């Protein structure tokens, strides 16, 4: 056991699952430091090299677009299409060709210099959302550089584990057919590449700081992405354990009676296992995994994808599709949870967006956004009374809740005046993700119909750590006693006022965390549908007593070692 730990490295959860294979590191691209500096490049040869690489890049990017259209959401396709435009940019290509010709540079050097120039001028605009787009420029630059040198795609189709400092969305899609898992040094479990990994079911660990030191090319590794763990050079026993988990994971994707039954603990306490939904394509998963409802509909991606038309009718269509797919179970819609940066408004350029204008704060300042969404949901509620719940994200103080309810009443009065039916007793819930709300949960519980805890944001705010920042992300620990204590306060308050409380963060899909939450009094767990079979299995295998004991142990596990030990013990079981 101790030895197994010493040969594993940890990161943060990206996308769940297990994989076995050998390390594949994409070919090193030109590092921009002049390491291949040459003054005697043959311009004619370099022009040809560039033109060929450019054509190959166009073709390969088109493959990615085709693949993405089959698999992923609208926002990903938008990103790739912008990249296509960049690749075809006439000025860009003209500048590169000219530089090769006039300065006798290697194609690599010319590409690097020209891209650097553009990246700098975009960075100089100082506009946050433009600066973010320089990632697309870097992605295209690296694609061109890769094609300049012989493509290094593996010949073996399976059993590769993609490893790098950073993996871009397009890279992941490109390598997807050849790999069974991936890991990167960069953090950011909410980044696009993670969303893509989840949508195509690739086990993915992010934020692994010592990854490049340990995972050398060709090394055999096992990825246990559910535990955000990479096992280096695993022994036969570890391999067979991972192998059987891979097999279980695959079997559980098939709808089996045993796996789609509502879950209850071994001692008979029913636990509702719910699904998180973001894109229309997620609805298929409801049929496959048969959750007992949808505990979280993230409405912002769908809304952002409707670039031109945020109308009530368009929203209604999406909401109705979710409600109908979930029948006969309840659906919980989270109102738009975006930061000001997503609105692309000038006033939203904040120095500290995590502590800034987002969630309820933003919604209450943008009544058109809030009222349109409330109207769309209310209209859908008319045909499905009692089946819809609505929750307000990022609630900080009680006053926000009162203002929110005022808005709702205005919308309801308007609908009534126009004789448009709606469900007047629609359930209204609060997201508990800001420490102030968790600490004051006993007050808040008097006003709400339910609580829902977003463990990602709650952890980030309780621990004061940005988990996308590799310098501090090791402090991001959803099982730290401080985080669990806030969950316990909220859960106690909910029980005292007899309202349901659910967990809809990522950690609900981690079996140990889920058992701990149950021990703290939570009865609704909402998660990525793919995690449902394993969580149901855990619930059936566990008693309430065991869950409570685990929660007590974790609440007093003050050091990382103690927490690891507790997790290790359960792994063995």
């Amino acid at each position: 056991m101790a030895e197994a730990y010493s040969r594993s490295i940890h990161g943060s959860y990206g996308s769940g699952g297990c994989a076995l294979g050998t390390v594949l590191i994409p070919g090193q691209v030109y590092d921009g430091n002049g390491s291949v500096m040459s003054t005697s490049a043959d311009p004619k040869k370099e022009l040809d090299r560039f033109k060929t690489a450019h054509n190959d890049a166009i073709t390969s990017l088109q493959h990615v677009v085709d693949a993405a259209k089959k698999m992923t959401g609208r926002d990903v396709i938008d990103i790739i299409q912008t990249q296509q435009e960049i690749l075809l940019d006439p000025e860009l290509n003209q500048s590169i060709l000219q530089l090769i010709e006039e300065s006798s540079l290697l194609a690599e050097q010319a590409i690097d210099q020209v891209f650097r120039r553009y990246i700098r001028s975009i960075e100089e605009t100082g506009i946050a959302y433009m600066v973010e787009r320089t990632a697309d420029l870097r992605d295209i630059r690296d694609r061109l550089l890769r094609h300049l040198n012989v493509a290094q795609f593996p010949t073996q189709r399976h059993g590769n584990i993609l490893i790098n400092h950073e993996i871009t969305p397009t890279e992941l899609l490109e390598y997807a057919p050849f790999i069974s898992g991936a890991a990167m040094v960069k953090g950011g479990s909410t980044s696009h590449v993670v969303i893509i990994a989840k949508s195509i079911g690739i086990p993915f660990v992010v934020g692994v700081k010592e990854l490049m030191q340990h995972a050398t090319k060709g090394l055999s590794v096992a990825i246990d992405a559910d535990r955000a763990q990479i096992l280096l050079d695993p022994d036969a026993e570890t391999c067979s354990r991972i192998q059987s988990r891979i097999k279980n994971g695959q079997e559980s994707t098939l709808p089996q009676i045993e796996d789609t039954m509502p879950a209850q603990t071994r001692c008979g306490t029913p636990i509702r296992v719910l699904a998180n939904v973001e894109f229309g394509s997620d609805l298929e998963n409801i049929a496959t995994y048969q959750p007992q409802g949808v505990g979280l509909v993230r409405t912002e991606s769908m809304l952002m994808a409707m670039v031109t038309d945020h109308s009530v009718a368009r929203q209604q269509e999406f909401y109705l599709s979710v409600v109908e797919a979930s029948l006969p179970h309840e659906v919980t819609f989270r109102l738009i949870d975006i930061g000001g940066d997503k609105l692309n408004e000038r006033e939203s350029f904040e120095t500290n967006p995590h502590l800034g204008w987002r969630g309820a704060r933003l919604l209450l300042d943008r009544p058109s956004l809030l009222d349109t969404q409330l109207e769309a949901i209310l209209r859908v509620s008319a045909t499905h009374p009692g089946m819809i719940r609505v929750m307000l994200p990022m609630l900080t103080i009680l006053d926000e809740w009162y203002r929110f309810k005022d808005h709702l009443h205005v919308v309801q009065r308007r609908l009534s005046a126009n004789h448009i039916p709606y469900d007047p007793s629609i359930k209204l819930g609060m997201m508990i993700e800001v420490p102030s709300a968790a600490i004051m949960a006993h007050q808040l519980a008097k006003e709400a119909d339910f609580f829902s805890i977003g463990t990602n944001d709650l952890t980030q705010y309780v621990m004061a750590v940005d988990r996308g920042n590799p310098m501090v992300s090791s402090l991001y620990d959803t099982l730290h006693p401080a985080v669990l204590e806030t969950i316990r306060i909220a859960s106690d308050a909910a029980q005292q006022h007899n309202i349901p409380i659910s967990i809809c963060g990522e950690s609900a899909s981690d079996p140990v965390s889920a058992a701990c939450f149950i021990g703290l009094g939570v009865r609704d767990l909402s998660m990525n549908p793919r995690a449902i079979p394993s969580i149901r299995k855990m619930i059936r295998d566990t008693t309430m007593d065991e869950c409570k004991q685990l929660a007590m142990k974790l609440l007093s596990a003050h050091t990382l070692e103690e927490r690891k030990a507790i997790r290790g013990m359960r792994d063995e079981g």
Partner: protein
Amino acid sequence: MIRRTVTVTNSAGLHARPAAQLVQVASQYKSDFFIHMYGYRVNGKSILGVMTLAAEQGAELELEFIGEDEEKACEAVVGLFSAGFNEH
């Protein structure tokens, strides 16, 4: 040659998505297309050029079209601006 002055009305300005739209429309025509703003001049068929302008809401741009189908190109591009790039 045709010159037209337009104002950026959409709240997000000419950020990546509108820039891509603009370039896609302009590239359908043979005419050369340039954008002038505060003394800068960029190729309107270059998404990176358009992005580096960083034109925000309220910015005044002068559009310049030169070529055989300049009238059609002008009409299509000006149409995008008056529709606010269909943002709202």
